[in-house]
């Protein structure tokens, strides 16, 4: 008997006391779910405020802009303030967002030559996101257009992430139906952090030490 058969047989023996309802597949929907799907209500402005508050609480640096036309100014300013000489750019990032990046800043497009080792010397990365969750202060990336492969937002030390109003949800239960599990996802709540030394929180162990969020209000 293979180990597969052995383990499955052991499970069936172990569950001898459990009545098998029928030959049909079990129905996970039958499990009662009395919890809330949101703790925040429906008002988009309130949800956006909560997102900004919780992002900041987890030490992401939040920048508010009025509408999408102001993103370029904010991104250009943040890269200049940081003194970034190189910036990684995912496929499909709106070209407008980088319109005010200082001349002389090297843009590195995604591709096989942008290895992890090369990314290690890149100063910043600019991306969009798939979903942002207000109640937990979480940004979800799913490697779609404008977000890049997972390593792009991992190896450089500075990540600027742009959030559009339509991408914001209140809660974790509202986020999951919007996400495709077949895509690789990274859920980010603040910058990399550890509390392993006497539970003192330290930002920036292996992921980006600085997470800046450009939040579009309208």
């Amino acid at each position, binding site marked *: 008997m293979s180990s597969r058969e052995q383990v499955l047989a052991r499970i069936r023996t172990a569950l001898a006391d459990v009545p098998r309802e029928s030959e049909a597949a079990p129905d996970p929907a039958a499990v009662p779910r009395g919890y809330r799907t949101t703790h925040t209500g429906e008002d988009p402005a309130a949800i956006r405020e909560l997102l900004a508050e919780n992002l900041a609480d987890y030490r992401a640096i939040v920048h508010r802009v009025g509408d999408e036309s102001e993103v370029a100014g904010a991104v250009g300013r943040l890269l200049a303030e940081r003194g970034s000489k190189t910036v990684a750019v995912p496929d499909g990032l709106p070209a407008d967002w980088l319109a005010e990046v200082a001349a002389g800043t090297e843009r590195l497009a995604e591709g096989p030559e942008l290895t992890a080792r090369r990314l290690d010397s890149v100063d910043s990365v600019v991306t969009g996101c798939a979903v942002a969750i207000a109640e937990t202060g979480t940004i979800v990336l799913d490697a779609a257009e404008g977000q890049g492969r997972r390593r792009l937002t991992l190896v450089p030390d500075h990540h600027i992430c742009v959030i559009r109003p339509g991408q914001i949800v209140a809660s974790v239960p509202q986020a999951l139906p919007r996400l495709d599990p077949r895509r690789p996802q990274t859920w980010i709540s603040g910058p990399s952090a550890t509390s392993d*030394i006497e539970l003192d929180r330290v930002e920036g162990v292996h992921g980006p030490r600085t997470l800046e969020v450009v939040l579009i209000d309208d």
Partner: protein
Amino acid sequence: MSRTFVGMPPFPTAARSSTKDGQLRANLTHATHTIRDKRAKAVAELDDWAELREAGKRIKDHTLRHLDHYLEQLEASVTAAGGQVHWAADAAEANRIVTELVRATGETEVVKVKSMATQEIELNEALAKAGISAYETDLAELIVQLGDDLPSHILVPAIHKNRSEIRDIFQDAMGRWGRPAPEGLTDRPAELAEAARLHLREKFLRAKVGISGANFMIAETGTLVVLESEGNGRMCLTLPETLISVVGIEKVLPRWQDLEVFLQLLPRSSTAERMNPYTSTWTGTSDGDGPQRFHLVLVDNGRTDTLADTVGRQALRCIRCSACLNVCPVYERAGGHAYGSAYPGPIGAILTPQLRGVESELDASLPYASSLCGACYEVCPVAIDIPEVLVHLRERVAEGGGHRDGHRVEGAVMRATTWLFDHPAALGAVERAAGAMRGLVPRRLPEKLPLPGPAKAWNDSRDLPELPEESFRDWWKKREQRGSGE
């Protein structure tokens, strides 16, 4: 290097030395109290916590009742997404499978995400025997590995070490494993974290094989989920060419939607955060993004034995949050090493003897490593009734496992105590006599006292309480006579 839990003494013996370690107790008290206070606040933010907890419990129970079905579904989903599934009946088989998978890549080193399952099966030691170096990349696991130590907590494995001890370990050992610690390293946590970043980054950038566990596996989609904080998990899960995930069979959940429950329960219960800094999900392989080869090793190693116990099977609901450790008065004083297993604390006291059986002296002692105060059940996000399982396992030990003496002594003591409480005059006399003789009573009973085995172990690991001048009953009587004026 890397010690193992094999051959550990039984809990009372191990606890006897650890409870005398003042530094350890100070480190533990600080850490557990900090995190339990923070957790209470994080939980209080959600007014539907009770409903979430109930749903978490019910989803896990539903899955366990149909575990064969969901594992077969998971296998089909992972395979369809480009992964390869392997089944391991026990630790030896899991280690053999992983070793062969690493060998097939031609590599002799791997980077690892913190994983309880690989600690349980002692994978690092098995790989070392095969000439493969496994580098732990979680900061706390790195501290434990460099210090040739054992983890002592599920969430913060180096909780027993303070900053100056960590500095010494980094300075002594980093150079032997790769990039040495920077000159003049101080014990500031930020500096220590930076030293770990530099030490590990060169390993991440050259690693061809990553090994992980998983917090959850979704049967419906074949998705695996890892929660972490530092980004070392993301490095191991995305930079190598080959990813091998070693996961206990009980970690499966039916549907993608089920994550809405556990992504609320787990971070708040474990790190006391609304959400941990990073969560990664992956489904098989993705073209041009992340590892192009993915292996899932499903591990039984005693889980089906646990499933067969109708009372004890609820331990398989555990999502390894470690909230029960942080509220446990026994854990706080004894420390994690005394439990002699990758799983310390209250959950370890019920999980370990079920996974390994109660034949060894250590495993038979674990169901007794508790005061049955119930705090662990209160905080458990999936409502595992740990005290119920402890009592159940004590019965099992008493009936079969060669520890009848211990049970008999406990029974005799309980019968004597019951008699005393049933005879108030006798109780009063005993208490008064004790008060009168308090000057003569030592702080600790002599360790050479000719007590039978378990009673001796009990005695040797405890200080005697200070006896009050008068008994409570005498004090109460006088207080009543004086009236309620004071």
